[in-house]
């Protein structure tokens, strides 16, 4: 079976630091793969490379068998890789609904002239974008609907901002969603809710999910497979139990026994 996302020999240096060092990673369709690792292991850099936000030094990233390296981020989204950001990056001065509507940019095509002349096709598409945005927001129960549609994103609570960011990614009709620490800063109840949500994203929406996570309960709860990174290299891969008991992973998190003792 061909992997949905296939990364081989990926490398990236920032000055003298090897942020990603010859990384191989594959994600199959319908999988939920967690990426773990201590701070600075290169997890977010990996996401930035996959989504084209920063240029890659070497290696290959294939999505559905097509090389996507070097494509602009908007083209990569168009192929079906959407993401969220570790430090929630919404469009703060746009409304909740508009935030989600923007994500459908690459799936729609109304031009400037159509907007000026308000053609029937334009109106139809606009209505469709709006309806879809509202449907997507409805995925989170009643948290982002009703009067919240017209609220500015910056007026939302922290947890709702995280939810909105996920909604925005969903609205782009992705095949794969990359979630960068979706539970950071959330309380235990919200974390629990989000853990269930990640499962729902795969089961109901059919997304393949790659998630960076620090909370081991979440990792245990959602992952089909866990990949551990350290210094930009893959140090372990397997089920949660395998990885959690891997010598090298424990060492990466807690330090060497000699050093610790």
């Amino acid at each position, binding site marked *: 079976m061909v992997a949905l996302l296939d990364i081989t020999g990926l490398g990236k240096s920032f000055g003298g630091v090897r942020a990603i060092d010859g990384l191989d990673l594959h994600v199959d369709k319908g999988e939920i793969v967690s990426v773990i690792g201590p701070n600075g292991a290169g997890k977010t850099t990996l996401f930035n490379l996959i989504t084209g936000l920063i240029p890659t030094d070497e290696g290959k990233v294939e999505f559905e068998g097509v090389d996507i390296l070097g494509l602009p981020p908007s083209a990569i989204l168009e192929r079906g890789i959407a993401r969220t950001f570790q430090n929630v990056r919404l469009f703060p001065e746009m409304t909740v609904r508009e935030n989600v509507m923007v994500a459908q*940019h690459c799936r729609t095509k109304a031009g400037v002239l159509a*907007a000026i002349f308000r053609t029937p096709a334009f109106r139809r598409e606009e209505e469709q974008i709006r309806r879809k945005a509202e449907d997507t927001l409805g995925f989170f129960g009643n948290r982002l609907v009703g009067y919240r549609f017209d609220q500015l994103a910056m007026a939302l609570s922290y947890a709702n901002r995280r939810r909105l960011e996920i909604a925005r990614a969903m609205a782009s009709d992705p095949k794969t969603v990359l979630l960068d620490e979706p539970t950071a800063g959330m*309380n235990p109840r919200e974390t629990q809710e989000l853990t269930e949500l990640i499962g729902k994203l795969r089961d109901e929406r059919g997304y393949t999910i790659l998630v960076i996570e620090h909370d081991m309960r979440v990792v245990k709860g959602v992952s089909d497979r866990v990949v551990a990174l350290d210094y930009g290299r893959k140090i372990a891969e397997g089920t949660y139990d395998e990885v959690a008991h891997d010598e090298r992973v424990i060492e990466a998190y807690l330090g060497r026994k000699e050093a610790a003792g």
Partner: protein
Amino acid sequence: MAEAVQTDLREELLPAREVDLRRSVRVGLLGGLTAVFISAVGMVQSFDEAGLVVGPLSFGDLLLLAVPFVFGVLAGHPPPVLKGFAEPTSGARNVIAGGVAGLLTGVVIGVFVALVDTFDVRDIFTRISPELLDILTYGQTLAVGILIGLVADVILGLAGGASQLLGERWRRPLFWALLVVVMLGVLEALVSQILRGARLGRVQDALYAPTGELRLPSAIAIGLGLFGLGLWLRDQPRAVRQRIGAMEGERRRLVTAGALVALVAVLGILPWVLGPFLTEVLNIAGIFLLMALGLNIVVGLAGLLDLGYVAFFAVGAYTTAVLTSPASQAFSPELSFWVALPLVILAAVAAGLLVGTPVLRMRGDYLAIVTLGFGEIARILFLSDALKPTFGGAQGILKIPDIAIGPIEFRGPELFFYAILAFALLAGYMVYALQDSRIGRAWMAMREDESVAEAMGVNTVAAKLWAFVIGAMLASFGGALFAVKVGSVFPSSFNVIVSFTVLIIIIIGGMASIPGVIVGALILVALPELLREFQEFRFLLYGALLIVMMLRRPEGLIPSRRRARELHEEEVVQDAWLRAQAAEASATASGE
């Protein structure tokens, strides 16, 4: 426990019960410095030469006396309190604070007068003259004059402070009434002209004395009348809006359509009511409005700070000039305006792409600097000897024919008003239609966070180029009309000041807000045209206005609904709390 925390906060947020003397003194000194400053730069004096305004008071006097009043209001106004916390109750301390500020203002002016009388500084400060001294001492001897000033300043400061006691609902109509009365006095020549034009000579005689000042009794009557009207109308706009909002879809659309028709009808007869001079002023404002609408897309929506916007204005003006005028030597097809217009638009689109393409990868300050350069490049190109055969160099291009539809020529300010109105309506509609569309959302997303917009599928290259192209197009409309209106173009009309003026219009009016831009253009372009005395101090006032706006109302005079929400939503307070909670949660989480 929670209660204790709350009372602690209140203690901290509420000013102490007694007068905040330090603040009053600070405000008063600032007032004094302001008065000295406007005297020393010559504003008081040159305004004084404009003659009397109300009763025996000249414009200069009013300006001087406004200072203690305004600073009295400021001193009496308590510092802003977060929403949700109790406002401190008003009382004698507001009045006293105002009085202290007034006193300090008066003292500073008095010291200034005494110093000026003792030392001759005219070699350096040319505007500090005996005439100024005469105004500052109200025509009396030095000691008496200083005393009068001091007493007047204290009284006005007290009055300013006392205005705080009135509460928002009374204060607002009062200030408006005062402002309108003063404006009636200042714009005497114009108002008289309009009244005469409307054959209301008797009203004019009742209002103004033969020497041109507003008669005191009528001034008071008008002031009271306006105050009453303001009180009566206080809640009307909101009530009307609510009633319209409550209507059914069909009726609501009908009412909106009716209001639009009424508006167009008013605009239609406006030039004939206002007369040629005022219409000309509106025309100038209209041309700036066109540019401001365009720049509003580039800066307000797309967030691309373009300081060389005048380049597109110049391209529009010069293309029109070359294509329609017989005077251009190298190339003069002498097309009619309407045939030339599509070519002007094409030229603007080309210019937009020309400026937009090289700056695609630039953001923020760098973009501002580069565009500033492009603006100058455009002006220098039009001025250059190399292109002189086409653009006429410093001599410019003359004999640009009027716009004509069939036999009707849009000559004279009244008819030309319609041409500008038509283009302004078109531009306004374009901006309105675009901001709520796919490309509008792409622009806003780009303004908010360019990388994320890109990651969310927005083709930022296309979005940027479109912003530049549409912006350039609207500016070229302004340029084309400007060229026809003046009948000639010269490179000197297209300096960087134009770019700045347009930018200031949208900042003061309200970013990304169409009504804001209209008000901005009227206040910043039309008003200075009306008040000839202002011209000299135009940029000084722009600067002062910008500073005041940034401090007091950063969202602009009429903010877009969005910005208004952002800056005055109680949830901002709630949000700060939530963020603190989140930070705490993550701190404990990482601590585990």
